[in-house]
């Protein structure tokens, strides 16, 4: 166990140092850096598995750091997250072998390789950290390494701006964490995480609440939940795609890790509003994240917004778990937590896959703008197929992995009727609605993402001349696609270790049964057999095309132009654009987007009957970015005004007052 950890770290440091040492020989340094990362990630994977099967590890190096020194340890939760990180890092490193080639000469591959190794190593060590100082140190190291990776293309000013926002946000989060840890340390009088669980239970409510809020803010900003998400859609697309994959697929999960630790380990069960808050935040993040993704036409930023959405789904599971725990239903709490963690792993897999797909497209077409893509399924068929797998998985469609974890989340939320507190029930009901809306919108969004990007005719020269990417990148994606399928059709592989993990964490045995072919939630409340669904799909898909042959149907095919009402030419200009595709949503949710529509028509100087150009803008505004506080101000002013007009001689005015007063009284009296 220990030597495994040491080997892993050795690989990473070798990769990091080697990349710097071989800086002059660009390709060599590229190879060394990424190979080191690959080997290290493999080692980490083994380490995580060893931890999951119950391997244990305590490592204290007192004099490596001041106060407390370095303390590392492996328990099941840490091990699980190590596996998640490795699951993202292995293919990322493999992918980077090919992907970083185009950076050769433009940017320093040595620095990139160094930062890449440090980044992965830091992430792995963070989840192993066992005392405050170690944790904060590694957390900062991780943030800085990722910051440098984001700044790779530092010559582009949007990258610089993104990096700046990222830097500020991540350090605001760090400050919150620092404060929270400080308070907790002072209150409990110890810096070792191990002793917190017992000590924190005896704290007075106010300081516990304060600590919870601070830590939740800190970890939430790393996880990128709304409204702390502003850095995410900026920073992730700016980074090189294999790094985007790591950040979006893995790094933000450390926020989830933190919140899980806080809620179930360090602070223990808290008041109901903790869980309620997490659940509501999750619901909001899920819905708004996917809504923003829908109107986004920059492929990588679209994926980044989907990370916000999926974090929201995970938070639904966590928050549900916390609420169940407060209402003394350990079984359901465990179930919800299992669902959340399962989705954490799944999201790491399919989001990395999708970001790598986006990277491959960027590599091939040199654009991130979906409006310039199209027809790529014919030019890069394998990438297209792999991206499709990722799309189906993230849209939570059976039989892939997104489906099973979202299904579990649904089960745990629906089972909330066992709690007998109306307010909690309503919160859960809204959670159900939010999750449902999210999954529907996610499906819609990936119809757009895949359809506009890969189908029909290419919308630009660069897309028309796209070529399939090299084999390392495809291999990395294939690996992840395979994982999507396996995690989807064979849930026991994940559920068994997760059950143990959650049991270790909070002592509740998840309220479910599963065997090789079926998962059953709460003795027959709901069940699903993804393997059988998959087999059924395959069987029918084989059988149905044969049927017409048997009954002797006409099998003649003729290829002819797309029907355009007899129109002579058929070009990409006739295709539906991403903007047009998203427009219904823009109109339905106009309240959120506040779209500003402009239409400039330039007429021919001779006659207005001849139009030269028509320019149509339909930009949505991001309320959180540019006006989080403005509505507040507006509200205050409005209130002032209202106060003045209180005395309108208006019958309804008075009736309204009566009604409001009545309702208020009722609420107060009860």
């Amino acid at each position, binding site marked *: 166990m220990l030597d495994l950890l040491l080997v892993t770290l050795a690989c990473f440091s070798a990769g990091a140092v080697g990349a710097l040492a071989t800086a002059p020989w660009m390709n060599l340094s590229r190879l060394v850096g990424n190979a080191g990362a690959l080997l290290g990630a493999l080692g980490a994977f083994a380490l995580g598995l060893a931890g999951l099967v119950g391997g244990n590890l305590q490592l204290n190096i007192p004099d490596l750091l001041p106060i407390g020194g370095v303390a590392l340890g492996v328990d099941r939760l840490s091990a699980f997250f190590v596996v998640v990180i490795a699951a993202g890092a292995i293919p990322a490193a493999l992918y980077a072998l090919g992907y970083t080639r185009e950076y050769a000469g433009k940017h320093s591959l040595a620095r990139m390789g160094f930062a890449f190794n440090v980044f992965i190593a830091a992430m792995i060590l963070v989840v192993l950290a066992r005392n405050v100082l170690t944790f904060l140190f590694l957390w900062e190291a991780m943030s800085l390494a990722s910051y440098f990776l984001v700044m790779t293309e530092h010559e582009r000013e949007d990258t610089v701006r993104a990096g700046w926002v990222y830097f500020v946000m991540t350090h605001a989060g760090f400050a919150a964490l620092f404060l929270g840890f400080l308070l907790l340390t002072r209150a409990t009088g110890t810096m070792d995480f191990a002793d917190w669980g017992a000590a924190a239970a005896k704290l007075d409510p106010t300081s516990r609440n304060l600590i919870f809020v601070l830590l939740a803010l800190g970890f939430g900003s790393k996880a990128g939940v709304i409204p702390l998400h502003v850095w995410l859609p900026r920073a992730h697309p700016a980074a090189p795609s294999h790094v985007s994959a790591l950040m979006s697929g893995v790094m933000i999960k450390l926020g989830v890790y933190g919140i899980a630790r806080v809620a179930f380990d360090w602070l223990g069960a808290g008041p109901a509003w903790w869980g309620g808050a997490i659940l509501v935040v999750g619901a909001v993040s899920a819905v708004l994240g996917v809504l923003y993704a829908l109107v986004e036409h920059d492929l990588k930023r679209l994926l980044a917004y989907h990370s916000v959405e999926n974090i929201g789904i995970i938070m639904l599971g966590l928050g549900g778990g916390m609420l169940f725990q407060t209402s003394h239903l350990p079984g359901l709490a465990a179930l919800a937590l299992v669902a959340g963690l399962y989705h954490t792993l799944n999201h790491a897999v399919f989001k990395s896959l999708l970001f790598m797909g986006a990277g491959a497209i960027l590599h091939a077409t040199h654009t991130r703008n979906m409006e310039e893509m199209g027809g790529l399924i014919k030019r890069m068929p394998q990438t297209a197929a792999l991206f499709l797998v990722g799309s189906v998985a993230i849209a939570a469609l059976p039989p892939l992995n997104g489906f099973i974890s979202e299904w579990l989340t649904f089960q745990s939320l629906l089972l909330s009727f066992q709690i007998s507190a109306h307010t909690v029930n309503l919160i859960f009901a809204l959670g159900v609605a939010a999750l449902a809306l999210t999954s529907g919108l996610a499906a819609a969004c990936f119809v757009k993402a895949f359809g506009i990007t890969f189908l029909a005719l290419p919308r630009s020269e660069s897309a028309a001349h796209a070529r399939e990417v090299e084999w390392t990148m495809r291999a990395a994606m294939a690996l992840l696609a395979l994982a999507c399928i396996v995690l989807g059709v064979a849930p026991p592989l994940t559920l068994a270790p997760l059950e143990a993990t959650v049991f270790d964490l909070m002592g509740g045995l998840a309220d479910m049964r599963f065997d090789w072919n079926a998962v059953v939630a709460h003795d027959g409340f709901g069940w699903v057999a993804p393997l059988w669904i998959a087999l059924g799909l395959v069987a029918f898909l084989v059988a149905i095309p044969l049927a017409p042959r048997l009954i002797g149907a006409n099998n003649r095919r003729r290829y002819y132009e797309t*029907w355009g009402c*007899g*129109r*002579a030419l058929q070009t990409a200009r006739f295709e539906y654009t991403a903007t047009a595709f998203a427009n219904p949503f823009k109109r339905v949710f106009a309240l959120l987007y506040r779209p500003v529509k402009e239409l400039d028509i330039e007429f021919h100087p001779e006659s207005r009957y001849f139009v030269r150009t028509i320019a149509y803008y339909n930009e949505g505004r991001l309320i959180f970015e540019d006006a989080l506080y403005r509505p507040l101000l507006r509200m205050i002013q409005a209130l002032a005004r209202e106060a003045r007009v209180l005395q309108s001689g208006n019958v309804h005015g008075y009736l309204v007052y009566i009604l409001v007063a009545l309702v208020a009284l009722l609420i107060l009296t009860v």
Partner: protein
Amino acid sequence: MASLIKHIWKTPVVTEALRPGADTEIEVIARHIDDGARKRLGRSLHIRQVDAGSCNGCELEIGALNNPYYDLERFGMHFVASPRHADCLLVTGPVTRNMADPLKRTYDATPAPKIVVAVGDCAHDCGVFAGGYAVVGPVSAILPVDAVVRGCPPEPRAILLGILAALERRA
């Protein structure tokens, strides 16, 4: 809404009946079309109407085929939106220069087996538009026509007869 239901309740089925014996032309047609259609396309015929430059007189009559009185649907025929779904092109009007190419494309877009029925005098010989500078010629100049329906405009029953004729020619 209540009143609407009442109205529906009051209104009888106004479709011309297919009483055996009653030798209304429509009934004869109908029986033929039943046989012809059954032989040819399994009692299901989907029609795509193409206006190749007509004055819309024929369209009015074709539209009448859909009304409750003629009720084309009862013969298993109905109009479809895309030539991909169609078995029969119902072409009206003299073929104008602008419509010649689209007409050809529509024909090519229609999956075989397919029939073409030219409806109206214009479709047959360009009628009063013959020799006009914008006119390419009759439908037969562009497509292989299976049947022609004379008349300016032809009656709905005549159009039905035409479709029947086309079916039988192919059958």
